[in-house]
């Protein structure tokens, strides 16, 4: 028994010593490799920026060792992609990426580990490597889990304007509204227009579209947003209202009455916000009433809206001193002293 225990413990200890030695050697090697990579990057940075910006047509040499070369080019391009503006610069970046990374990325997509595959998918999008569109399309169909790899593959296809991603977006119930918006932000305008005319859009996609339209503030989408104020689905109506607060516009001021007197507190809240954002003084009596609403968020929105009106300070002063509801008085007092942003 004693011998067995000693053997097990000894073996475990030895195993750890071997692991320690291997890790220490590996660490030492990776420190040296990292230093070489950094040196190579620093050497390539200046000449490459000159080349990428179009000041020179001669492509600088890159290190021969593949691992260092890939590191240098990825680091160079990923820094550069943050600041690239003109079409010519984009084209040159794309050409450089294709030249040095295309084969490597194709190989990684097929044989790399999960994190390597995700990393190259990030870079493909940053470097606009549309030449790899079909590889990504094949890849997304083989992705086993609905995780970051799957989502990034969709982002890449959306960025490349590949309409084959649309069915994924329309039929995958597991996609979040936030993620659907990420795709919408990447889609070409023609995709968006075709989506607006698609019948029976899933409610998640429609919600995401309304939210996205509010965020962009493009007036061509406004009629679509306003039309959805009449939806029977409460979530759709709320998203349309929220979008209008971002547009800071509503064509039918009279219709606001319906929202600020709604039985749903969220509609009252958005209604109050819109009144404030649109500076509609004629609704100040209703706002004064909402300042004493049963819901904290409605009270907050009402007092915030009062503050925005031309005579807001006086109205808030009055509410703080004279309002019959004690909660309204407290909220008005808070809003007098609190600096608020746009809570759209």
């Amino acid at each position, binding site marked *: 028994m004693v011998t067995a225990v*000693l053997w097990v413990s000894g073996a475990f200890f030895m195993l750890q010593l071997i692991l320690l030695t291997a890790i220490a050697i590996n660490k030492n090697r990776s*420190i040296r490799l990292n230093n070489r990579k950094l040196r190579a990057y620093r050497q390539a940075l200046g000449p490459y920026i000159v080349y990428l910006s179009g000041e020179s047509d001669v492509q600088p040499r890159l290190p021969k060792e593949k691992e260092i070369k890939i590191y240098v080019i990825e680091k160079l391009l990923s820094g550069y992609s943050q600041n690239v503006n003109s079409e010519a610069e984009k084209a040159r970046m794309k050409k450089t990426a294709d030249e040095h990374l295309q084969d490597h990325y194709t190989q990684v997509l097929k044989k790399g580990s999960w994190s390597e595959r*995700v990393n190259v998918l990030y*870079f493909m999008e940053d470097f606009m490597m549309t030449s790899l569109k079909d590889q990504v399309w094949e890849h997304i169909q083989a992705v086993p889990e609905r995780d970051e790899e799957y989502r990034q593959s969709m982002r890449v296809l959306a960025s490349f304007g590949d309409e084959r991603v649309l069915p994924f977006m329309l039929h995958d119930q597991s996609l979040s509204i936030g*993620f659907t918006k990420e795709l919408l932000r990447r889609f070409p305008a023609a995709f968006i227009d075709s989506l607006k005319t698609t019948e029976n859009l899933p409610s998640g996609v429609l919600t995401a579209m309304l939210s996205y339209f509010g965020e962009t503030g493009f007036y061509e989408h406004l009629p679509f947003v306003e039309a959805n104020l009449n939806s029977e689905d409460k979530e759709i109506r709320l998203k349309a209202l929220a979008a209008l607060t971002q547009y800071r516009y509503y064509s039918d001021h009279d219709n606001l009455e319906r929202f600020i007197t709604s039985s749903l507190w969220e509609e009252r809240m958005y209604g109050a916000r819109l009144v404030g954002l649109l500076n509609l003084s004629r609704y100040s009596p209703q706002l004064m009433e909402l300042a004493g609403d049963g819901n904290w968020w409605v009270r907050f929105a009402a007092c915030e809206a009062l503050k925005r009106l031309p005579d807001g300070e006086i109205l808030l002063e009055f509410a703080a001193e004279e309002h019959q509801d004690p909660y309204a008085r*407290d909220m008005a007092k808070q809003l007098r002293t609190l600096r608020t942003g746009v809570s759209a």
Partner: protein
Amino acid sequence: MTGWINAAVEAAAIVIIIYMGSVSLLYLGMFFIAGPRIRKERKLNREAHIEEIAMNKDTFPVSVLVPAYNEEVGVSSTVRSMLALNYPQFEVIIIDDGSVDETSSRVITEFRMKEIDLAIRTYFPTQPVEKAYQSTLFPNLFLIRKLNGGKADALNAGINFSKYPYFAAIDGDSLLDRDALLKTMKPIIDSNGRVTATGGTVRIANGSRIIRSEVEKIALPETPIVLMQIIEYFRAFLIGRLGLSRLNVLLIISGAFGVFEKNRVIKAGGYKVNTVGEDMELIVRIHRSLKDEKSDQRIEYIQDPVCWTEAPSTLSSLRSQRRRWQRGLAETLWTHRKMILNPKYRGIGLFALPYYILVELISAIFELVGYVIIVGGILFAFISWEIALIMFMATVLYGSLLSSLAVLLEEWTYHKYPDVKSLLVLFFWALTEAFWYRPMTVIWRCEGLIAAILQKGSWGNMQRKGISAEKEAA
């Protein structure tokens, strides 16, 4: 008579050997559960991974709650680290829980705060909030001053005051990485709200170089007692928490840093004020409410190191901390005893809670008896040397070898320490654990257990130096 005692001691020794062997195997099992996840994400480009949500207007806004009691030394650097967070929309709320030092006045002066009137919602009753302030420099920075009610009460007051749908609870002496909120919110955002709370890895900052409230260079402290805590944290987070999280039975999100869905916490009833283990107690209660509602929401842990904290550097403050932790654990398990082995609570009732009782709570007693038997056995020969040797090896396996494995795991995954020497130093100290550090903490944990049973104890506060003022690493 002597023969009878010897037999009893030997029997006890065998029970302890089986116990320690089993727990070691359990830890190894967790290591194998945690390993694949760590391996999967090992080479992930972390910056690119959070790039999207950093710019995304849909990233849920978060209220950062920082309870502070007599934190005049570190509060300003903590606030600065919070304000520097890379996150689209957040507010920082410092809750001065009746400090008797200069905590409030430092914040008010440094961040030019102006008093505001209050219209607080009261999701939970708390000690009265006396005053509230908003910074004139940073409109998203608030300070509320309340009467002393403890950390849980302060957090409840912060939740009442906060306006965003998610909140992060952070200790007043902690520093966050700039991307900490993004990383911890990512599972919530990616899951479309199915993740209701997340906790990140907490690291010890003693010894590292901290400039402008940011960890600039990670280095090891010189004090062995702090070094051992670093190793302990590796083991607890990289093996324990990740393993439990993968089984969806995580019971602790460290009080130092966690992110929560506010509605879920409100439904669960907020932080419990009359316990010293309010962080764990809340998580157990959230699990309970999720299971009661048959909700499919989850609690997740992310293995990225995101939060830096100051570890106790004196024996007395470490003792006080460990007694407090053990008492908190005992109280939480006692409060939720009906969940234990209750099939209704699935993994939590059938695995996680029994695990915490057997491995985290009463292991201290087993270990203490083990140490007594080993020492007594060697000195007075009342057990055979074979048994004493096996017990000794089990103790070493249980403490030192597992800790050194955690050190290797950390190096294999994050390799945050910049040189080979740091790795060797950590490995060496990990191997010494069973010979000095573990017996010491075992005694303190037993003290905590006794105090929990007797419902008494003065827990004291750690004398903080402030991590920003830590000695700079060479």
